[in-house]
């Protein structure tokens, strides 16, 4: 009993930091409609800078000054980034902002290693609060009592700020209706910058107060960002009280989940999130988004079928790919195989996201299920490659059918967060269910059959399968079903009013996208000869997002270009450059600002019309 109470206090102490970060994200989202992926990075920066400052500022006053100063410095940095970067892309679709902030995250991860090194850093204990206080005979760190109080204090402060100050009123007004606020003559730029700075301040403070509790390391950002996403989604985006409530719920779930269900503790949090979202689609205290932005892709040009030139170009590309083994060595061929696999992965994500308007933060789930499907078949049934290639993706199909049923009940950001939750559930199962999946030891020995074991043969097998699947996706996009999917994205109201069953159509599209991702995953398992939980990890999902967005949502071929470009770049950079994340991140940021329509979109809009002049309009009207 006593132990449980202390565990409860433990949960509360963790909740405070989580709440600080989540409320920052929530406030930023409420006003600017930006889902700030870099929020975790700012949290991490807050912790690192606080660590450095506490090395110089000592004593009680010094310690707390250092924490506050660290948060202020990071907030100033945030304001600077908002003014120079984000301000340029407020009008872009929300995903581009996500991409830009993801680029920032990559940069910060490497900068942190460059400045502070890759080692974990142990911060000082808070002066005067080093000891522990006995609670019902159990020892409880004195500092954690301060943290427990901090959450409610900040919540109260935010409440006063929003209720009692003119600035707060403006923020609340902007959260409800940005257009109206600007029509009333409020300086939007200044409001956005200050809101962003406040949000970042809260994130950095959340990181700074953690240093006496846990070691500072360069992977804190992804860890916290997932939890924060979960918190804001459960609490309701844009609602600070919701964020507090959810932070407490999540932290207590974590604290007790470990005790009660050690095997599925990780799954528990995401399960709760999934249930909340299905029962209350806008979170516990959230409201439906008032000015839902046009779904991605609504403002874009119609997809175009290939003309004769396009078809010829595709045949040429395919022939070129078939000739690759003639001059490429084994290493280059395996790189090529990987590119093909990710092209299919990106194309499957595009089917769901670009065509279907269902943004997925967790497409890795189906990729990973396909890979594990093959892995488990080999491990337990000793299945040959031919059988596993067919049966492996079945696991992905099952996952997509199950998760899709929940996901299509939601839309927009909430749908995206739910896909993330399901991907994390899959990851947790693969990671924690040691007896079956081997945990982080993965499954080894997934080798192609003898006839396909030569890298060249496997390359051709992959090329044939991926080309066939991508062709199938393309046919689907231009089929009646593809049109129906696109219709549901463009206008739900119109779709329903001409007899289209939106949920069914989207569910089917979701399942198809999962299936193709699963096929890619199975091939990937055979390419690597093994499967590890990483294939289901967030980085894999984000890679997919980056590929699709980089290639451009507006074109059917874009994601394939994006996949090839991004994967080639990241494979090359990881082998050549020490701080490849920094370069890659900066590149993503620059690309988002320079080509908000993506590589292929840029091509279609700017370059291709120059050629098309000569070609007559093939789509002539009868």
């Amino acid at each position, binding site marked *: 009993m006593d132990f449980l109470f202390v565990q409860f206090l433990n949960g509360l102490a963790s909740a405070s930091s989580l709440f600080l970060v989540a409320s920052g994200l929530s406030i930023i989202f409420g006003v600017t409609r930006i889902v700030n992926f870099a929020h975790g990075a700012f949290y991490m920066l807050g912790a690192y800078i606080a660590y450095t400052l506490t090395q110089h500022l000592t004593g009680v006053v010094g310690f707390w000054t250092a924490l506050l100063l660290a948060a202020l410095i990071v907030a100033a940095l945030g304001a600077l980034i908002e003014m120079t970067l984000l301000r340029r892309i407020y009008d872009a679709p929300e995903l581009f902002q996500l991409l830009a902030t993801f680029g920032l995250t990559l940069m910060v991860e490497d900068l942190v290693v460059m400045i502070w090194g890759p080692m974990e850093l142990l911060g000082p204990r808070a002066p005067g609060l080093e000891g522990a206080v006995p609670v019902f005979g159990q020892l409880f760190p004195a500092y954690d009592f301060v943290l427990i109080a901090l959450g409610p204090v900040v919540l109260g402060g935010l409440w006063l700020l929003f209720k009692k100050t003119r600035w707060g009123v403006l923020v609340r007004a902007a959260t409800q209706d940005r257009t109206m606020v600007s029509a009333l003559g409020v300086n939007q730029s200044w409001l956005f910058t200050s809101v962003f700075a406040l949000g970042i301040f809260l994130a950095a403070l959340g990181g700074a107060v953690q240093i006496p509790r846990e070691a500072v390391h360069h992977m804190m950002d992804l860890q916290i960002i997932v939890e924060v996403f979960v918190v804001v989604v459960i609490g309701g985006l844009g609602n600070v009280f919701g964020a507090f409530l959810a932070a407490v719920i999540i932290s207590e779930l974590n604290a007790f989940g470990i005790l009660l269900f050690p095997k599925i503790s990780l799954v528990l949090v995401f399960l709760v999130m999934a249930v909340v979202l299905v029962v209350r689609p806008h979170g516990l205290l959230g409201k439906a988004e008032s000015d839902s932005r046009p779904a991605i892709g609504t403002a874009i*040009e119609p997809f175009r079928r290939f003309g004769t030139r396009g078809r010829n170009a595709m045949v040429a590309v395919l022939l070129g790919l078939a000739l690759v083994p003639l001059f490429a060595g084994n290493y280059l061929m395996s790189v090529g195989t990987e590119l093909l696999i990710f092209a299919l992965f990106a194309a499957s994500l595009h089917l769901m996201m670009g065509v279907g308007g269902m943004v997925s933060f967790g497409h890795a789930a189906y990729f990973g299920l396909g890979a594990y499907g093959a892995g488990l078949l080999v491990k337990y049934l000793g299945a040959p490659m031919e059988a596993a290639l067919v049966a492996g993706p079945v696991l992905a199909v099952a996952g997509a059918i199950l998760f899709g049923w929940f996901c299509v009940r939601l839309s927009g950001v909430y749908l995206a967060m739910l896909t993330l939750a399901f991907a994390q559930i899959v990851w947790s199962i693969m990671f924690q269910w040691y007896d079956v999946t081997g945990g982080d030891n993965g499954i080894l020995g997934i080798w192609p059959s003898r006839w396909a074991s030569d890298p060249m043969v496997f390359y051709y097998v992959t090329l044939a399968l991926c080309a066939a699947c991508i062709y199938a996706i393309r046919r689907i996009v231009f089929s009646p079903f593809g049109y129906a999917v696109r219709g549901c994205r463009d206008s739900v109201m119109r779709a329903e009013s001409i007899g289209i069953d939106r949920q069914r159509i989207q569910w089917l599209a979701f399942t198809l996208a999962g299936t193709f991702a699963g096929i890619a995953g199975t091939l990937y398992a055979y390419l690597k000869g093994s499967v590890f939980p990483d294939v289901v990890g967030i980085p894999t999902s984000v890679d997919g997002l980056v590929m699709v967005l980089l290639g451009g949502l507006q074109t059917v071929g874009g994601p394939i270009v994006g996949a090839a470009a991004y994967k080639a770049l990241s494979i090359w950079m990881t082998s050549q450059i020490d701080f490849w994340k920094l370069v890659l991140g900066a590149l993503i940021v620059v690309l988002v600002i320079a080509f908000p329509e993506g590589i292929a979109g840029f091509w279609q809009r700017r370059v291709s019309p120059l050629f098309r002049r000569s070609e007559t309009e093939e789509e002539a009207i009868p």
Partner: protein
Amino acid sequence: MTALVVQDLRKSFGGVEAAKGITFTVAESELLALIGPNGAGKSTCFNMLNGQLKPDSGSIKLFGQEIVGKRPREVWRMGVGRTFQITATFGSMTVIENVQMALLSHHRRLRAMIPFAGDLYRDEAWELLELVGMADQAGRACGTLAYGDLKRLELAIALANQPRVLLMDEPTAGMAPRERVQLMQLTADIVRARGVSVLFTEHDMDVVFTHADRVMVLNRGELIAQGSPQEVRNNSDVQSIYLGSGALYGAEPAMEASA
């Protein structure tokens, strides 16, 4: 035979009664106007008719079949087409593809994955576009159309299902005066040729009194008058509640039935 029989339709939002027992019928091939000041409950009434809103009580029968409790897409399948007050079309498709989409749904080909959608029902779509005078813009992206053209496109989409009843929510809102009369004339012609019944709401009294066979007046959730345009215009209740002093639409109609 009557196309639509609406009986004692009620709906309240919180304390506001948006429909306090609305009863009316729509005859076959009839152009019936539903008018009333802002907030009278016109849109609520429309949303109940196509299944978007579930009424608290009452019944709506389409050629004897109950509509209440059905979803919009089921109501559409029963033969009720609808155009929206604020147009809703598929912005990433061309004009003709929008109509083809409706035809694909009408022919129940939505889950076909093999054929190219662009090749299906193209002639049929083309005819519908010609009917509403949009054929010259068939290849344009829908997102780039002028508002009046979107309204005409919506009409083509609604007709694709060969509806028996057409609900048009402010079909001419946002159009230039001349366009309005043209669109309603077009609608009237199509409707009479195809035997479709039309229920429409409208703020432009020129349009209403020129084209409607019958007019109903809704105020605060209640029908306060119905009859021929002439009768409604002369109804003193309507004049005082809806038309103010009535000076504008006095005994002598101000209808220049625009050239």
